[in-house]
């Protein structure tokens, strides 16, 4: 029964604090960068930083780095299917005109789904 020699893994306390610090630092970076206009790279940088943060959370807070690699496989397979789902959907909606003559555009792009109320004074809401 008690043949287990190695004790269950326990992440050192310092790792949690370091990862927490890194996450806070990256949050500051991503907010600061958002005030700089990088054109199309705004989205790339924001998602890049978010993915790095998510990786830190998954590897260290969620113990994927130390745990049974089966859990990592479950997690990554989920992300893979999510990627397929989003990428194929975007291809369909944005690049349909590469196959069909139809121009790539939202279906009825100028459709007003709900009537806008008559313009009134709006002074609040800006920051």
């Amino acid at each position, binding site marked *: *029964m008690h043949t*287990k020699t190695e004790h*269950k893994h*326990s*992440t050192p*306390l310092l790792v*949690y*604090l370091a*990862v*927490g610090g890194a*996450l*806070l630092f990256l*949050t500051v970076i*991503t*907010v600061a960068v*958002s005030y700089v206009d990088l054109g199309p790279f*705004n*989205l790339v940088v*924001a*998602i890049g*930083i*978010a993915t790095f*943060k*998510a990786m830190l*959370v*998954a590897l260290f*807070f*969620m113990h994927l780095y130390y*745990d*049974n690699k*089966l*859990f990592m496989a*479950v*997690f990554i*397979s*989920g992300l893979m*299917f*999510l990627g397929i*789902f*989003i990428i194929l*959907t*975007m291809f369909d*909606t*944005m690049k349909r005109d590469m196959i069909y003559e139809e121009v790539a*555009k*939202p279906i009825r*792009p100028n*459709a*007003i*789904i*709900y009537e806008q*109320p*008559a*313009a*009134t004074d*709006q002074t*609040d*809401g*800006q*920051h």
Partner: protein
Amino acid sequence: MDVATDRPAYLAEHFTDAEQQQESAKLGMWVFLLTEILLFGGLFCAYAIYRAWYPEMFHNAHKHLDVVLGSINTVVLILSSVTVALAIHAIQHNKRKQTILFLTITLLFAATFLVIKYFEYSHKIHLGMLPGKFYTYTGIEGTNPHIFFTVYFTMTGLHGLHVLAGMIVIGWILIRTIKGHFHSEYYTPVENAGLYWHLVDLIWIYLFPLLYLVG
């Protein structure tokens, strides 16, 4: 060998040893987290489609979200992730009082997150920045700005429900810790609740830049 005599109470009959039991429970938890990722994945896909269709409207509308409150909430969630990790670390070393303390702090952070969210929501509801036909605001240029708020309220709303569910789970774990159900040899429920909480944090890590920063 007489198995019945030296089996601890927390070890269910159908497992060989505690380690196998813990691994099985964690595998089940990861499969559940996978379904959560796919649940939110559908919404992220909707976000991608509408953002691609109406880039200018998204850009104009996202400026109406409060970056300061969003940033504070990001920090609050990250800190709560740290405290829940510290709670697990403490129970692994039989420091039950520390676990109770860290779980309580986690609950307070979670409540802070929801209170801030409440102020953000009530401000938007007041201005009529609401989903679909409830949208009455007129200050945003672009086609169909109500779609941005449909996406915003659905994504942050579902995430908020997960925060609420996480609080219930952590509260339950806290009560069981106080009752002394967990120790260094058995803390699987604490760890699985932690996994759930980290996933809630992980989803917010994407929601925050996508909605508040780049829109």
